[in-house]
């Protein structure tokens, strides 16, 4: 998980084209971003359509077919207790995507309001909140996630909660930074002068303008969350068998690399593709939203 600051992105309200139109134009031009988006959409579709697309039930065991290599019957081979690997990859997409989606949603839900309040109100409240956020950032992200997951108990849901909580400070800090840079703009001052209540200013004037960097960070955070889920599974704290998740599949496969490499290749490739795609898309999005590009 990165703590890099994202440059202030204030969409220019003066050019002829609507900001989102210009962003879209830039985005489409950047091919890696489009590739990334496409792959993400593919995985989401796979996850949603799993019951229709999967050749087998991911939990049906078959003693006779333990650790069989890829074949016509089992295109990705079978795992250590005879389950079809392809089926588990397809169904496992749900767990990995959920890990990305839920964790980030949690982090946004907790971090953005905190950052808004801290940035807008300033003063003592800001100081207090930011010290607490700094404290959370000072503890290495994975340690925090491990401790939380250990406290909550090993399961996918708890891993998502743990990762989400660990990512909250980054969104809080980002939001606050954005609010600070926008707070003194003319249109905000004007809205205050007219007599708008604070909550209205925050929700209707500030928030929409800081969505772009949040969106970028959310995409990148989702990628990090999926990797974090794999990491927690490696330590035995993520999704537990027999439910499939790519991270826990990798964790089981690591002890069979020489005997059954296919057990590891597919989940590894799946994680890699999804995470890379999210990273490419996020980077492309950041580029496209950069106001310096005309």
């Amino acid at each position, binding site marked *: 998980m990165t703590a890099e600051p994202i440059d202030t992105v204030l969409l220019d309200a003066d050019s002829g084209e609507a900001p989102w139109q210009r962003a879209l134009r830039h985005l489409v031009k950047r091919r890696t971003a489009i590739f990334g988006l496409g792959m993400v959409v593919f995985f989401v579709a796979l996850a949603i359509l799993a019951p229709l697309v999967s050749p087998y039930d991911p939990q049906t065991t078959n*003693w006779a077919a333990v650790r069989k290599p890829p074949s016509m019957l089992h295109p990705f081979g079978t795992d250590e207790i005879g389950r079809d690997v392809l089926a588990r990859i397809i169904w496992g997409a749900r767990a990995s995507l959920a890990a990305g989606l839920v964790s980030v949603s949690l982090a946004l839900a907790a971090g953005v309001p905190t950052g808004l309040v801290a940035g807008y109100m300033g003063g003592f409240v800001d100081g207090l909140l930011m010290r607490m956020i700094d404290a959370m950032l000072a503890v290495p992200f994975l340690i925090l996630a491990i401790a939380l997951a*250990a406290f909550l108990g*090993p399961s996918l849901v708890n891993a998502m909660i743990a990762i989400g909580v660990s990512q909250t400070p980054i969104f809080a800090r980002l939001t606050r930074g954005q609010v600070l840079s926008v707070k003194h703009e003319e249109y905000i001052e004007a809205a205050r002068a007219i007599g708008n209540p604070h909550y209205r200013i925050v929700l209707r004037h500030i928030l929409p303008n800081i969505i772009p960097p949040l969106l970028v960070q959310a995409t990148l955070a989702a990628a990090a969350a999926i990797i974090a889920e794999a990491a927690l599974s490696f330590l*035995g704290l993520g999704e*537990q*068998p027999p439910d499939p998740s790519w991270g826990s599949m990798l*964790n*089981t496969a690591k002890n069979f*690399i020489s005997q059954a490499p296919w057990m590891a290749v597919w989940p590894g490739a799946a994680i890699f593709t999804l995470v890379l795609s999210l990273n490419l898309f996020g980077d492309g999005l950041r580029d496209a939203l950069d106001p310096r590009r005309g």
Partner: protein
Amino acid sequence: MKRIFAVALLALGLYAGAASAQTTLRIGLAEDPDILDPTLARTYVGRIVFASLCDKLVDISPGLDIVPQLATEWQWVDDNKGLVMKLRQGVKFHDGELMDAAAVKFSLERHLNMPGSNRKGEISALKSIEIIDDHTVKLVLDKPFAPLLAQLSDRAGMIVSPKAAQAAGDKFGEHPVCAGPFKFTERVAQDRIVLDRFADYWNKDAIHFDRVIFLPIPDSTVRLSNVQSGQLDLIERLAATDLDLARKDARLKVDAITSLAYNGITINLNNGDRAKNPLGQDKRVREALELSIDRAALNQVVFNGEFTPGNQWQAPPSPWYVKDMPVPAPDVTKAKALLAAAGVTHPSFTMMVPTNPETLRAAQVIQSMAAEAGFDIKIQATEFASSLDLAVKGDYEAYLIGWSGRTDPDGNIYNFVACKAPPALNTGHYCNADADAQLDAGRTAGTQTDRMAAYGKLAAIILADRPIINLWHQKWLYAMGTKLTGFTPYPDGLIRPQGIALQ
């Protein structure tokens, strides 16, 4: 800080000076040992280090007979309430002090009285230790306790240097001084334990290398990689699923022996509210569960057929196995009939499983097999430390757990089913007066025949009540480089350095 620097210098010096003809044996362990103080130590893996570091009064043979080590002869007296032991002469501790009866008395009293001692429960039958002469002690008990010699073949029988122990107090574990073939040189937590040959060891002819380094490497694949690449000479607990690979690898040799350990499903019969379910209350349901599990298939799928299926607290090859109650064959039809008779055709329960890859695999197979008889088992993967706590509190229905095994059969059963057993071990709170009577008979009887008779009767009760459904006994599996010779596996899994040589 200075100590670390000094140790580093020492290590550098040893390295430089001994670089010429020093032979080093590098052993890979599956975990990092805990405190290296025989009185306080608590882990199985620590015993592997002790096998090179601290000799004990008696030892066991691969056939589980008690053989002399620091004691040369012994005799039961006073109706089996006294044990007279003659000590070996000329044994020196690592600090040069001589071992005598006073040292033995000191060590045993240390095991009994030191606060926090983990040995107290093991030899609590000892009332006092008398010194007969410089090389003879008499251990006095208040009632006969057959497992005593077996306890003295483990940490409770390890003799430490009184001078060093008194000087170090409870810091003794940081630099232990015993009478084993190797003496303590250095330890870096989670990295390595280094022991060097003790020149005055009483059995020095059996020792053929100068230094042994223990390296804890928890991941079994990485541990194997190390011995394949030659960085380690010997590893313990090779994964069953890697055995085939290791056999085919020309760089390696493998060895195996059935362990004293067992693994099974412990059922909560009487510990709190969660015991109030069909599984905990009705023994027909438990019998149905046992009949739905195909132990041979379980062994095949999870352990490549390498381990030993079992149904008792002793493995089938053990001399203490009750031969007229063999491992039952699976019978799903009968299981279903039992469930119907019990009035619950689709019993559902949660099985708590520590997050350990092999155990989780086994749990999934059990879940799948039991489903055929109608059981709906939910697997609750729980971190080991949490699972212990939950088990003690009675917050579980079934617990898939094992026991590392003790030389004496009493050590494998008493604490798990006796009414008076510590609640931390008999977590299901099983209590049956008839079983208790047989347990006590097994403890106090004088001959193996008499004890076996008691255990036969005990098995008839326990295997019918099923507080624990035993499923498999693991084998201790070792992989080593081809240059290593003279290794003998023991049922307790410990690596004894005597006889091992590197060509």
